[in-house]
């Protein structure tokens, strides 16, 4: 297998290259003005490790895959065209009002509570750019009022006069009958034909999101339209650049659904958060290959802490209404939770309880923690970590940033020690304990809300601060095993290198599978099967268009079910793709009962209230060859006790006095090496803190296993051929 996968982040462009049995990681600074430059630099760095020319590599790889934050950045910077919105008359304010709660979407709980301070985000489509179209469809798709085309043409012209550069059409109940949305598109094309310079992109909402919910569907379409140009130009210029460098296949773009597709089958909206999602996907692959069981993936950086969930059995956890930047949308996206906790989280004195508070506000990278000595005046988690002895003042980030211990001490004394009358180390320990608890609570809430016990999980810790706080988090959760994954500094790119081509199509409906009033079970199998067939066909066409072979295409049927009139929709993987007899219906009901009971508690199931299908969803995919990561578990036979590079005093939670702690250089630790805590292992990108009561074993590709005393390394059922680096 020969493959290139790239994750373009805000600061770095990460590259992961597979060249037969060689796995290469490389990095370069992201070049925002022209993404191709950063990409080429990263790729060239990788090629150099193999002594290959970039053109040779690109001419031979089976695919080049991209995960990018381009769309996220454009949204944050509000960099996009002037979008006009056509909605059903009477619904002109749905988007400006954002369901009321839109003011708080994407904010922390404290900000959400503060109603006097509430402010909605600046609109992507301001009110003057919204017009109501005279038409109306009812809930089942009957036309209540025909489309008034004369009125429509007037509205379109008015919006164009106001400077519209792109149109979104989002009419009520269009997912059950899109005839009016299609007609509006035709009228727009009649008025502004595609071959003329005045032509404008048109996004029909029912094409972007197939589920009911006029606000979330319209938001999705707006973001899609807003990002379309910037994504199209950014990605197509990358593709063009690749073609000029001997790459002849279509470029593949990573989707936030956990799959990927060619540019011509990608909505701009699907690329948002694709980097973090690729990280979850890498975790999923790793868990499967290394037979890790349930995994919680955590990415702790400078400002935020991302949590993703990977469980055994292939059940994927989606957000069907994720929040993108500040807007709730309606696209299936791999479930991710972000907390305001990172190295830059600011520490404050909590006057009421006489203790410390950490986050969610962050000093970010500018000015950054006080110890950076770049003007930061508030103590942060990184300052506390430095004062506890975990970080090396001279060798932080491979010596790129020199840390000032005196600054960290000064700000912590001013903010905490003077008020609490304690030493800086006591204060720093409080900070460490609190921030670890905050992250542990986030993980615990997340897992338990999905019906899982954290103690049955392996904690996957990546990101700049993950290996530093992993033990602290695991201590609070009762987790015995932490894995710092292989290739952890380009982990999302690894995920991009393992994804399959995938398309999701879904249909909203109101279908009683058990009607408790009439006490009837669903038996119109042909009607159900027809919907599934149509969704399969849509996915099949997507994949055929991208050159996939018909015989390689697989489908996966999911149903969103609910009891009675609940809001909860439990996604059940249907055992069969078609309904043929009552046994099939009962199998779905039983599966629903099991999944629901696991999530909300045994006995909470309420079939007496009836069971409804709200969404039928078909995933269409083609499985491609993947990277072999099964060899990350040390064999257990060859263990060495490496030589430390030095030692220093570190302070730990639960220990009154500092402990003499040995330090190691990560690069010099061989596979199979075992380091007992307390210890600090320093790598170029992060610091591994092995707390007392823990040990670390080093695996292939830089993987590091943190094991609590008494805990065992997972046993791999089958051994695979090792890949060479």
């Amino acid at each position, binding site marked *: 297998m020969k493959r290139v996968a790239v994750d373009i982040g805000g600061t770095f462009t990460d590259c992961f290259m597979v060249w037969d049995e060689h796995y290469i990681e490389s990095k370069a600074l992201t070049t925002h003005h022209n993404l191709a430059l950063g990409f080429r630099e990263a790729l060239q760095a990788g090629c150099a490790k193999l002594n290959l020319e970039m053109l040779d590599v690109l001419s031979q790889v089976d695919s080049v895959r991209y995960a990018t934050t381009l769309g996220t950045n454009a949204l944050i910077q509000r960099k996009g065209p002037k979008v006009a919105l056509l909605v059903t008359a009477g619904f002109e304010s749905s988007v400006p009002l954002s369901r009321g709660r839109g003011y708080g979407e994407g904010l922390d709980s404290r900000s959400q509570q503060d109603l006097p301070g509430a402010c909605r985000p600046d609109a992507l489509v301001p009110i003057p750019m919204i017009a109501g179209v005279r038409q109306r469809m*009812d809930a089942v798709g009957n036309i209540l009022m025909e489309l008034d085309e004369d009125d429509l043409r007037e509205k379109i012209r008015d919006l164009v006069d106001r400077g519209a550069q792109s149109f979104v059409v989002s009419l009520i109940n269009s997912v059950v009958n899109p005839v009016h949305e299609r007609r509006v598109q035709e009228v727009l094309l009649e008025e502004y034909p595609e071959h003329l310079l005045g032509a404008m992109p048109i996004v029909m909402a029912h094409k972007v999101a197939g589920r009911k919910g006029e606000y979330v569907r319209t938001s999705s379409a707006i973001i899609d339209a807003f990002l379309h140009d910037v994504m199209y130009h950014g990605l197509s210029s990358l593709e063009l650049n690749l073609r000029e460098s001997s790459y002849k296949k279509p470029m593949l773009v990573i989707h936030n659904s956990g799959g990927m597709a060619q540019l011509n089958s990608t909505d701009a909206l699907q690329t948002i958060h694709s980097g973090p999602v690729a990280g979850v996907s890498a975790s999923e692959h790793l868990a499967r290959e290394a037979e890790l069981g349930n995994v919680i993936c955590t990415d702790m950086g400078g400002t935020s802490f991302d949590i993703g969930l990977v469980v055994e059995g292939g059940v994927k956890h989606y957000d069907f209404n994720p929040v993108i930047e500040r807007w709730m949308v309606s696209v299936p996206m791999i479930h991710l939770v972000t907390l305001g906790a990172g190295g830059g989280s600011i520490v404050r004195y909590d006057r009421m309880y006489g203790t410390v508070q950490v986050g969610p506000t962050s000093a970010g990278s500018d000015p950054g923690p006080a110890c950076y000595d770049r003007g930061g005046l508030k103590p942060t988690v990184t300052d506390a970590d430095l004062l506890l002895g975990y970080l090396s003042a001279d060798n932080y980030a491979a010596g790129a940033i020199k840390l000032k211990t005196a600054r960290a001490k000064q700000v912590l004394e001013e903010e905490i020690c003077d008020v609490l009358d304690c030493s800086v180390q006591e204060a720093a320990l409080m900070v460490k304990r609190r921030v670890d608890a905050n992250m542990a609570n986030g993980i*615990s*809430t997340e897992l338990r809300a999905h019906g899982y016990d954290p103690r049955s999980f392996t904690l996957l810790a990546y990101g700049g601060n993950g290996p530093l706080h992993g033990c602290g988090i695991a201590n609070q959760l009762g987790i015995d095993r932490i894995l710092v994954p292989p290739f952890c500094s380009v982990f999302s790119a690894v995920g991009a290198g393992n994804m399959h081509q995938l398309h999701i199509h879904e249909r909203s409906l109101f279908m009683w599978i058990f009607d408790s009033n009439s006490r009837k079970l669903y038996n119109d199998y042909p009607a159900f099967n027809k919907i599934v067939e149509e969704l399969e066909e849509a996915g099949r066409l997507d994949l055929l268009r991208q050159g996939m072979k018909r015989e390689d295409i697989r489908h996966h049927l999911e149903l969103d079910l609910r009891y009675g009139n609940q809001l909860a929709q439990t996604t059940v993987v249907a055992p069969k793709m078609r309904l043929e007899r009552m046994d099939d219906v009962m199998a779905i009901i039983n599966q629903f009962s099991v999944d629901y009971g696991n999530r909300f508690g045994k006995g909470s199931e309420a079939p007496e209230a009836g069971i409804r299908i709200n969404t039928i969803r078909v995933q269409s995919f083609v499985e491609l060859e993947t990277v072999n990561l099964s060899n990350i578990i040390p064999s257990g036979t060859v263990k060495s006790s490496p030589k430390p590079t030095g030692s220093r005093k570190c302070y730990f939670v639960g220990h009154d006095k500092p402990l003499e702690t040995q330090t190691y250089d990560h690069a010099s630790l061989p596979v199979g090496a075992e380091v007992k805590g307390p210890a600090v292992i320093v790598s170029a990108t992060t610091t591994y803190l092995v707390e007392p009561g823990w040990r670390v074993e080093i695996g292939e590709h830089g993987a590091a296993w943190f094991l609590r005393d008494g805990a065992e390394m997972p046993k791999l059922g089958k051994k695979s051929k090792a890949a060479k680096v």
Partner: protein
Amino acid sequence: MGKMENSEVADREKMLIDQFLEDNVLFLGPDPEIMLEHDISPRSEMEEVALTKYVDPAAQALIRDRLQAGANESFEMLEQMGAAPGAKWGDLITGVFTASGDLSVCSAGGVLIFASLVHHPVKFINKYWKNDPTVGIRKGDGFIHNDARYGNIHNTDQSLILPVFYEGKLVAWAGATVHEGENGAIEPGGMPSAAESVYEEGLKMSPFKVVENYELKKDLVTFLQNSTREPKLQFEDMKTKLFACRRMEERVLATIEEFGLDAFIASMRKGLEDCKVEVARRVSEWPEGTVRSMVIADSTLRENVMVKINLELRKEGDSLICDFRGSSPEFANRCNNTLLASLKGMLAQLFLVFVWPDLPRNQAVFAPIKVIVDPKSTLCSSYHTPNAQSMMTFFPAFTATQLAVAKFMYSCPEKFSKLIAPWHNMIRTFIWGGITQHNEMVGNLCADLNGMGGGARSDRDGEHAIAPIFAPMADLGEQELNEEEVPFVQIVSKKLMMDNQAFGKYRGGQGYEMIASSLGSPLWGFMTCCIGSKMSSVPGLFGGYGAPAYPLCKVKGVDVFEVMKTDPRKFEFSIVDIMNKRPFAGASYTTHHTGMQFEIAKRGELYMITQGAGGGYGDVLERDPNLVIADLEQKLISHETARELYCIVYNPDTLLLDRDATEKARAAERMSRKKRGVPFKDFVKKWSTQEPPADLPFYGSWGRDRSVIYAGPYGGVPRRAMSADAIEAIYMPNPRDVRIAQLEQRIKELEQSKNA
């Protein structure tokens, strides 16, 4: 017998009598000792011991965070599993209570007032059922409750309360509350305004055991299902609340396992005590003084009368005193009465969301604040008066307090949120009921009530239709999902309405219009329940305007769905256009106050209401003209408003501002104001009277004298003047009888005129 012997006999007899009375109680009604107290309970013995053993504040904070995460988790679960529209769109909450019953930790989302009132039924259960051999409190039990007289807002909100035991000892309580809607009242939807007695308000559940061994008791569930119009909803949500409480119980027990029982108890208790101290400290920094405010509720929901909500807010040292004496007397046969506990719950909400949103959501926040009311006033109603629509008096009380607090906060050195004009305060929505397109009998309400307009801030405009006063992050929902489940169409759905604004230097957030019509049901109806149709219920701040008054509009005798098919151009997507242009021949166009009792709506008839605006801040003449132009561009205001009210001069075609002319126009208006003004003594002479005007249906004190409470006249019942310490409940005549009397009088006059 000697004196000593006499005394012994007397004591013994007293004991006998007391024991006899204690053993022979006919009925355990609400306990005033529980209901009148809003402070946290005295430390229990268990708490005293725990607090001496466990003193580390940092560790206590970790425990509270852990419990907070558990409460949030169970909240999310409740929201997901709940079947009531209220549960789906944010009208719910979960919380953890101390063993004594004080709310200690509460979910970050949801309606705080629900949880802040559940301590009353928990304390009732502790006091009366714990040692009662026929009831008792055991592991796995669960108690249901909805009667506001035992602690709640009104009986559409149902709570489930679960005791948490550890090693056989009662250590905490878990509670979950949801606005359920339907409850078997005289009108569907759970908030009857036609109820003339508590017995017409639907289920009135004093706290009783409905769960044993973590199982709902089927006989009781069946009884409750049989008592409401929505048996499916009643069953589903009882189960949902039970499992949300169980999830919280699990979290509490896991916390105890990890940190120890003493640590848990100490954290729960210390959190409350610290919070109480912090509130007193914050209050102490306010300027000393008294601020008076008043809001008039213009309706009982059955008739338009003036119900006075009177407030004197005093700050003395570290005490804050909300003195509501002088407010209207209670109404014996109207459901707009507020129980004192409900009032306090709502005020707690004010301080936690609008004044100190940074504080933890627990019972101690309101503990240091004192509330004074006249007994048997409409803010301290008695046992037999209905209260299903208590919001009609306690929301105005909230607003009166918000207004007064803002005046203190203006010169307060440390603020914890923005200084703000009053939020909109009415539940402007459709309550509905009938048979759905899926052939189910239902009764509930739309989430449209969650879009109350935000008040203007001291530095920026208010946010349009953003959140109800009682719940941050509540949800307006999605109309497509509503139409899937219930048989009516919102033809105009939450569309911002021109000039529906409280004007000011910074304007309040605007409200929207809604036009609804029944479609696809054999039997369907609507009701609405708001005050503020004749007189605004939301004032402005520091010269800002109040919200407008909002009528209910109806078009009957038409099927607009036929019009849409046959002559669609006739349909107007605006209340103002429909009411002014009257496009449907033969139809009737009427306006009403928004206290509409449940009414059957035929297919295609229009019911039109408006969501309200938040109050404005500061003088309109100080508004930045560019902001006025921006409002014009967004069609939020009319040209008339821009010209006449904000006094700006601009080109109406291009909206180009003429700055100089605007300055002159504003200077001229200032001069004109001076000319229109009168000296204060002349104003007093003209407007100040000893009593309310004789024909004014007025309820409450008049002027500064709060010792006399007036009531009436209304509907032929003459005015009464009562001493504030001897208020008697007011009986209102049946509006139908009043109307008949008016018509008969008119007939008489016509006959006399004819004969003459």
